[in-house]
C-alpha cells in the first residue's frame, strides 16, 4: 500500500527516529447475525509515520478518520491487523496473552499515552498522591524518597507547591489541572514517547494553550517525542514540528507543519484548511468548496478514498490507490496529481 517509504525524510531532518510505524492496518470485524460473509470496518489502512526525538508530530484528521485508532495501535492497546511498530529500529509488536505481559509493560515504560478526557481518565475516588505513587511504583521509578519524586513530578507540570495538590481529589481540580496530573502520571514512567490523543480538546479555550505550551516545554527539556492528535489544524501548526494528515484511515499528506499548512498539496488538506474558521476572510464568500462527507469505512471507495469528494478527481483516482509522492524537503502527498512532479 505504501510502497514508497520515504527515505528522503531521514535525510533532511537529522534527529533520531524513536518510534516508527510501518504500514499499520487495523480492521475491526463486525459480526452480523445470519451472515457468512465477514465484514470489517477498515479503520486504519497502511499508515506509516515516524516520531523523532525532541519532535512533535501532529496527526490531523476529522472524527472517524482513524487518528485515535493509530494512537491506540502505537500504544499497543489494540492488536495490529498487519504492519509493524519499531522502537529504535526493533520490532516491538507485542503478542497477546499471558506470556507477553512483561514485554508489554516494558513497552509501556517507554511509550505513554495521554487521553482526551481528564474527567474520565483519573479515578474519582483516589487522591492525586495515589495516582502518581502507583504510576511510579509500577514503573520502578519510586526512588529512595517518594515525597521528593512526587514533588518533582508535579513541579514538572507546573503544579506548585506540590503539597497543595497531592492530597486533593480529581473533582477538586479544574480541567486544566487534571490534564496536568494526567501528564505527570505519564511522565512517572520516564517515557521516551508521549502519545497525546486530543489532549486539549476537552479543556476550556483559555487554558488550552497553557497545556500545549507545557507539553512543548517538556519536549524540549526531556527530549520527548510527542504524537499530538488533533482535529484542529491551526493548533498543529502552532505546536507541531511535523504534521501528518489522515483521511478515512489513510495518510494523505505529511511534512513540515509550516509547509503542510501554508502550501497544502493534497486536495483534502486544502479543503480542511479552507474550512477552518478565519476571521480575516472577507465576509462570507459564496464559494462551493467542500461537499459530501467521509465515506463508509466498511466498503470504502476503490482507489483514492477521497475521490468522490475531490474536485480534481481523474480516472486513475477511481481505480488505483495513490502512493506517496515526494514533493521535496520531506513533504509528501498521496495524490495522483503529483505523479509527474515526483517522477
Amino acid at each position: 500500500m505504501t510502497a514508497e517509504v520515504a527515505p528522503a525524510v531521514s535525510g533532511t531532518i537529522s534527529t533520531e527516529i524513536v518510534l516508527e510505524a510501518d504500514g499499520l492496518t487495523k480492521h475491526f470485524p463486525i459480526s452480523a447475525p445470519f451472515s457468512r460473509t465477514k465484514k470489517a470496518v477498515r479503520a486504519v489502512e497502511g499508515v506509516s509515520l515516524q516520531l523523532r526525538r525532541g519532535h512533535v508530530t501532529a496527526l490531523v484528521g476529522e472524527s472517524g478518520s482513524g487518528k485515535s485508532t493509530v494512537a491506540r495501535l502505537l500504544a499497543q492497546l489494540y492488536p495490529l491487523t498487519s504492519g509493524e511498530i519499531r522502537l529504535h529500529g526493533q520490532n516491538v509488536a507485542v503478542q497477546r496473552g499471558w506470556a507477553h505481559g512483561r514485554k508489554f509493560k516494558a513497552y509501556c515504560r517507554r511509550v505513554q499515552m495521554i487521553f482526551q478526557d481528564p474527567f474520565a481518565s483519573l479515578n474519582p475516588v483516589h487522591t492525586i498522591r495515589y495516582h502518581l505513587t502507583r504510576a511510579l511504583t509500577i514503573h520502578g521509578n519510586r526512588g529512595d524518597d517518594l515525597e521528593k519524586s512526587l514533588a518533582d513530578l508535579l513541579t514538572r507540570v507546573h503544579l506548585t507547591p506540590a503539597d497543595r495538590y497531592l492530597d486533593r481529589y480529581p473533582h477538586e481540580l479544574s480541567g486544566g489541572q487534571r490534564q496536568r496530573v494526567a501528564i505527570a502520571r505519564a511522565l512517572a514512567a520516564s517515557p521516551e514517547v508521549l502519545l497525546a490523543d486530543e489532549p486539549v480538546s476537552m479543556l476550556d479555550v483559555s487554558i488550552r494553550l497553557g497545556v500545549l505550551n507545557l507539553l512543548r516545554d517538556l519536549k524540549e527539556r526531556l527530549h520527548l517525542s510527542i504524537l499530538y492528535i488533533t482535529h484542529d489544524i491551526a493548533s498543529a501548526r502552532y505546536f507541531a514540528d511535523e504534521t501528518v494528515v489522515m483521511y478515512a484511515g489513510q495518510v494523505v499528506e505529511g511534512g513540515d507543519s509550516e509547509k503542510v499548512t501554508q502550501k497544502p498539496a493534497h486536495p483534502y488538506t486544502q479543503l480542511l484548511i479552507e474550512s477552518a474558521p478565519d476571521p480575516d476572510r472577507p465576509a462570507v464568500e459564496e464559494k462551493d468548496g467542500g461537499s459530501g462527507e467521509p465515506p463508509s469505512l466498511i466498503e470504502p471507495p476503490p482507489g483514492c478514498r477521497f475521490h468522490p469528494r475531490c474536485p480534481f478527481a481523474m480516472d486513475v483516482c477511481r481505480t488505483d490507490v495513490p502512493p506517496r509522492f515526494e514533493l521535496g524537503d520531506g513533504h509528501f502527498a498521496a495524490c495522483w496529481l503529483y505523479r509527474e512532479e515526483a517522477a
Partner: protein
Amino acid sequence: MKDRILEVRGLDVDYGLGPDAVRAVRDVDLTLHRGEVLGLAGESGSGKSTLAYGMTRLLPPPGVVAGGEVIYHLDDGTTVDLLRMRDADLRRLRWAEIAIVFQGAINSLNPVQRISAQLMDVLKAHSAGSTPQSRQDRARELLSLVGIASDRLHSYPHQLSGGMRQRVMIAMALALEPRVVIMDEPTTALDVVVQRQILRTLVGLRERLGFSVVFITHDLSLLAEFSDRIAIMYAGQVVEEAVSADLYRTPLHPYSDGLLRSFPALKGPRRELSGIPGSPPDLRMMPSGCAFHPRCPRALDVCDEQVPVLGQSRDNRSVACWLHPVAVS
C-alpha cells in the same frame, strides 16, 4: 439603527433556591436586532446556555430565573415580556416566533421515529387546519431548504450522518418561519468541513428568510467570521459587546483579548501564544470586584473592590472593565 426584536434586561438566573443558590447569569443586558446574527461567546460554565434557556423559559429545575425581563417585539409593534406571559400565550409564541436548535442533534431527535413524523409533528401542533398532504409537502420543502434530498424524508435519524441530523434540526427550527432562532453550539460535534457547509447554509437562509439568530458557541474565531455582533460572557456576565470586526481587531476587555490570543492562527506569522493564566472562577466562590481580576494581566487596585458595570461607550461598543472607565459613566 435597525429595529429591535428581542431585548434582555437585567436577567439573573440562579441554580437552586435560598442561600445556597448559585448565580449562573448575572444582570445580563442584550439586544437582538432584526435580521442580525448575534454571537454569544464564552467558555464552558460562563452561563451562555443558561442565558439562552433562561430567556426562553426552558430552564429545567433547579434553574430559576431570579429577575429581569425579556422583551419581545411583535409584528404589530406591541411588546410582550416572555418571563411574565401566561403559559398558553407563550406556547403560541414558541417555535412560531422564537425557535431553538439544541446542542447535539444526536440527542435531540427521537431515534424511533422517522424524521418525517418529527418534522410534521411541529406543523400539526402549530398550524391548525393543515392537511396531512400539505404538511408532508412542507416537510419536503424544509428538507430541500437545508440541502437534504427530499427522498430522505422517511429516514430514521440513525440513517443520517451527523451533519445531516444537524441540518434536520435546523429545518425543524425553521418549520414555522420563526423570526428569532437561538442556536446553542449548533456545530460543536461536527467536523470543520461540515461545520462550514452548515453555517453557510444558515447564513444563506437568513438572508432569504430574514430571521435573526442568537449563535452560542465557545469558538470565537467562528463567530468573528459568521456573526454581526459578538457578546462575550465570563462567569455569568457579559463583559464586552461590539460589532464582530471591531471586537476582533481591537478587543477592549482583557478577557476578550486573552480569548482571541488563545486561538493559534492558520495564516500569517507564527506567534508565541500564552492563553490566559489560571482557570475560570467557581461560581459558588466568586472573587470580589471584577470576576476576571485574579487572571487579569492588567488588573488595577480598584478591580478587586468594585464590580465594573457594562456601559455604552463611543462607536456602539460596551465593555465592563475599569481600564475603560469612560464606558462606565
